[in-house]
């Protein structure tokens, strides 16, 4: 199996979920589903397929968080917000979503309503209401501070660092400093007609569409860069659950494997032992070649050790090929059943459009079914092995070295600190900060962290002299003049002057009680209040951006906008599972607004 079916990205769904107001599905049509027709609207590639009920349309752009830098994270999100601002409050079912690799504007309504919405989005993209910029930046900062995040939100950071596909782990830095020019430029170069695909669940293009957009080159998917030297790897996380992901070649077998895994986890962790309430797995294409398979199980503190062991054993069983034919058949039946919808072509439209956008091959429904039918138990075992060989596991409490996983690097590679000025810690813990012409090094008894200026993803400069560096590899150093001896403005200025200007973010003043002081005064330098041993320091620096202490830097738009007030835990997981799946984003948003 080398080519996946369409269903892997966007399982067709029932008409009533897909299109509001549709009648209940009748018997499957005898004839094959009406095909998808390609067209062009104002230079934008467009795909059409008739559905029953109201019209749903979506406008995809090939730009997302993975295209940003840490310093500009949120810039796509800002454009999306600004583009939707003029729609204001309305009964119309519409929304926007920003994922790792694409942005989607979508709407459901009458043809006239669809036209109004899409025309409005494109008009705004042509001429962003930048007088709103300050307000929207504020909104994004607030929005992300209150956002619930999926249990897997730290994995990208550890796998990819503070770049590309890792940026989804981070709070948005852009809303602190992005200028109108920067936002306008991003819209002009990324939200172009050549970098977009439109889809409409109608056999005709609605009248009156004016989707004029600037032209510009299509943008290929960003190339992934892994920073994990050894896999399978593990990191330590908070209690509450276990999560693992692995990178596999996209295929129908991998799609079915994720379903088999999901069912196996449910049986092993929930039905058999009652160790977990939620135990699930998900398949999400990352780029045109690879997908992430993610498995998650929640756990009460007193059961979490069993959840770790159970998840490891379930994965090992599938890897060993101890899979029943009935497990494969059940997963396959679920997928094949989805082809029985009378609106099959319309249901597949979003994923068809997304493939068109990224240059991924589209298969016909018959080809997809044939691929699903051809998957064997051996194929599943091969996927399980591929997942394991690239796995990154996050476990609460003790590690997972006992199960053959290697701890992800907690420190920068060993190297003598570059010559520079040495600044001993004022907290008397034999930690030394070295400011060199090309890097900052933090040396502790357990290891050292190095952030090179030319590999600095973001530098936050506080007016009080605090300089917080994040390297492209995700390691962070907080240079605080109040915590190290001899860190004069002249020394910290070296840092500010050496980091590439595009990575420098000038922050507003910190409240006095948030400026750290030695040994406990002000904001704790370490990001948790409990005593933390040196071995965990680097981990916490790495993990730090996600913790509440950094709420002032706002939590990020991983990929979709969760504007519902405090969803219940089950919903959070559902939303998380849907996050990176193209149609998933679409459905998740529909669920909230509709």
């Amino acid at each position: 199996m080398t080519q996946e079916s369409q269903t892997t990205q966007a399982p067709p769904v029932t008409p009533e979920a897909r299109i509001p107001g549709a009648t209940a599905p009748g018997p499957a049509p005898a004839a094959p589903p009406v095909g998808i027709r390609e067209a062009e609207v104002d230079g934008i590639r467009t795909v059409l397929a008739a559905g029953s009920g109201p019209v749903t349309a979506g406008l995809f752009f090939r730009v997302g968080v993975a295209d940003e830098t840490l310093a500009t994270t949120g810039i796509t999100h800002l454009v999306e917000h600004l583009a939707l601002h003029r729609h204001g409050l309305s009964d119309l079912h519409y929304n926007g979503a920003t994922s790792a690799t694409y942005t989607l504007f979508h709407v459901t309504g009458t043809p006239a309503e669809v036209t109004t919405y899409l025309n409005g989005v494109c008009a705004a993209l042509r001429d962003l209401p930048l007088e709103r910029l300050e307000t929207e930046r504020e909104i994004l900062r607030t929005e992300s501070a209150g956002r619930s995040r999926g249990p897997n939100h730290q994995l990208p950071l550890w796998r990819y660092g503070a770049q590309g596909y890792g940026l989804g782990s981070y709070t948005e830095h852009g809303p602190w400093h992005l200028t109108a020019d920067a936002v306008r430029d991003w819209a002009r170069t990324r939200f172009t007609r050549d970098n977009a695909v439109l889809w409409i669940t109608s056999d005709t293009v609605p009248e009156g569409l004016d989707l004029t957009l600037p032209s510009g080159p299509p943008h290929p998917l960003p190339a992934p860069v892994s920073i994990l030297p050894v896999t399978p790897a593990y990191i330590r996380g908070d209690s509450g659950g276990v999560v693992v992901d692995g990178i596999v070649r996209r295929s129908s077998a991998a799609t079915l494997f994720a379903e088999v895994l999901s069912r196996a986890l449910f049986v092993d962790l929930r039905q058999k032992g009652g160790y977990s309430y939620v135990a699930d797995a998900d398949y999400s294409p990352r780029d045109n070649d690879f997908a992430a398979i993610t498995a998650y199980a929640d756990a009460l503190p007193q059961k979490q050790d069993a959840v770790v062991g159970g998840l490891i054993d379930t994965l090992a069983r599938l890897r060993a090929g101890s899979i029943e034919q009935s497990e494969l058949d059940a997963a396959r039946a679920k997928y094949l059943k989805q082809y029985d919808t009378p609106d099959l072509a319309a249901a597949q439209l979003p994923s068809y459009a997304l493939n068109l956008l990224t240059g991924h091959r589209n298969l016909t429904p018959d080809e997809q079914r044939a691929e699903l039918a051809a998957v064997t138990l051996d194929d599943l075992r091969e996927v399980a092995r591929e997942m394991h060989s690239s796995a990154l596991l996050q476990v609460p409490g003790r590690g997972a070295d006992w199960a053959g996983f290697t701890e992800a690097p907690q420190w920068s590679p060993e190297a003598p600190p570059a010559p520079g000025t040495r600044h001993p810690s004022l907290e008397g813990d034999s930690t030394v900060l070295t400011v060199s012409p090309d890097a900052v090094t933090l040396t502790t008894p357990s290891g050292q962290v190095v952030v090179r200026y030319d590999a600095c993803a973001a530098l936050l400069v506080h007016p009080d002299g605090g300089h917080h560096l994040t390297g492209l590899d995700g390691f962070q150093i907080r240079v605080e003049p109040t915590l190290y001896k001899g860190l004069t403005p002249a020394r910290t200025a070296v840092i500010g002057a050496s980091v590439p200007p595009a990575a420098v973010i000038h922050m507003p003043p910190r409240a006095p009680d948030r400026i750290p002081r030695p040994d406990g005064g002000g904001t704790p330098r370490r990001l948790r209040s409990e005593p933390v041993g040196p071995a965990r320091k680097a981990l916490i620096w790495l993990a730090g951006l996600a913790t509440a202490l950094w709420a002032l830097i706002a939590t990020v738009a991983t990929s979709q906008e969760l504007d519902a007030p405090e969803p219940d835990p089950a919903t959070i997981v559902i939303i998380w599972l849907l996050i990176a799946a193209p149609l998933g984003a679409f459905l998740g948003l529909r669920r909230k607004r509709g």
Partner: protein
Amino acid sequence: MSPTVPPMHAEFDPCVNIPSLADLRAAVRDNDWARTEAYFDFLDDESDRAIASGLFHDLGSSERFLERAVAENPGSPLARTLLAVRYVYVGWDIRSSYRAEHVSRDQFQEFHAWLRRAEGLLIDVCAEYPTYALAWAARLNTARGLELGGSEVRRRYERLAEHHPHHIYAQTSLLQQLCPKWGGSWEEAFEFARGCLRSAPAGSPAGRLVAEAHLERWLDDSGDNHSTYLRSAEVRDEIMAAADASVKHPDYRPGFHWVGDHNDFAGALSLGGHHREAAPFFRTLGDRATESPWGYAGDKRVQFLKHRKTALSKG
């Protein structure tokens, strides 16, 4: 000519107490994998198989023989499991050659390294053969040594019990984990011991779990002075009732566990001063002794002989 047996003898060698095990020991000493495998294949009771695997504790260097067996029989769950069992013993010997407070960091790392090697083999065996009791039983020990947590040990037991619900070796292993010394509680320990007995068929060895739970409780109370916990009539009666339902029941079948079963009852009653009640167990045992529970009370040989003498003089 009659054999000359010392009048006061305590026999701790499992191959003497369970003569069949001598065949296994000979096969391993001969580096004969075919005979070793045939020996285990012949045993149809999973507890017997687990107890037989315990022989590898004292078979020094047998890991080399087993490593060869694994290399030559890569698909064999038995070879991999026995190798893992041997690794656990190698690791545990490194740890227990010193008292816990004197175990150095290096020794602990070495101990855990052996256990991780064992666990890696066992993860694969259990993945390939999810009902393979010998490997699941061994994983109770790796989980305890690697400190994987009480709920994980419990989960492993449940995976084993799913297919082998009355596995006395695994039950005694889990009971250890459920005691406070490994992070459990007396409520859990007694609930488990009594529950196993209740749900077991008449004449099962599970009654010894009740005796063991009381012994653990007594040991925990003892400190420097031996406590009076085991002296109470209530405890005595429960131990006697457990014996009636197991080793004294007509349906009782003496598998390899029988020596341990009787030593547990003899010990729990003797150490509580119930010498007359302990006497029948000693008569059945003769010289056959096990490390537990006598090692709890001091020198295992001295304790066994002293209590046997007292019991036989009273009952």
